[in-house]
């Protein structure tokens, strides 16, 4: 899947962003990037299913290492 940022600039001045194809915690760095790009402050952040799926994969990988 193509990795993309969708940045939405609303007429009321708010900015929304969604990452696509970015798995796990890596996506968090793009929230920081948005703050820098727009001199903005994050007000709300929601994680989608893909974020948690990756978390499970990472936990499983860690468990395999200990076995």
């Amino acid at each position: 899947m193509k990795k993309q940022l969708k940045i939405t600039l609303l007429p009321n001045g708010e900015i929304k962003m969604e990452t696509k194809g970015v798995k796990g915690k890596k996506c968090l760095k793009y929230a920081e990037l948005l703050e820098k790009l727009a001199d903005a402050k994050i007000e709300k952040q929601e994680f989608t299913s893909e974020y948690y799926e990756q978390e499970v994969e990472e936990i499983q990988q860690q468990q395999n290492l200990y076995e």
Partner: protein
Amino acid sequence: MSISVVATPFLLLPAFISMAQAAAVAVGVTGAAGVAVNENVGNLVKNEQEYIKMNEEIKRLLAKNDGKVSQEIIDLICREFETVFVDMGVLLKTLEEHGAQNIYVENGNISCEMEGFMLEFYKGEPTQEMAFPPYRMKITTRCDENSLETFIEDINSEYTMNSQEESYNKIKERLDKQNMRIEEEEVYDDNTIVLTVNID
């Protein structure tokens, strides 16, 4: 998708207050009309009556002070509002575009005349909670609530549109500097802009 984020530019007050709300609150606080602005016809009539009453009170105070404008009169006329305006540059641009005249800037504070209103914008002191406090707007002209409400809504809407434009220019310029390519740019009927950026 893995994350969804909502951000507010520093150009806007973080806890976004609509100017219509601010106006309604201020009316309640000052007790000029004691009602939310433009709530119903009854209120409009009441506002008009309050306006007439205020004019009469000003005439009485002027007569009492031999025609001199006293602090009592200034307090009666002046009204102050919270705004969402944070950035001086965007605010000045908005005021100029809206036809403001006699614009003066001193120590970050702005005064001007516009649509018959005498306006002052001044910033509060930064606090730990709010590093970039928004401007407060003081209106030092007699005016009726309806024209004031329309005026505030217009300025608010123009400021947020200018704020959107400023964010758009910043984002495009900074993406370019980081060699991040915009694959698609869409503008919707409501002026929402969507930028799709490749991050491969």
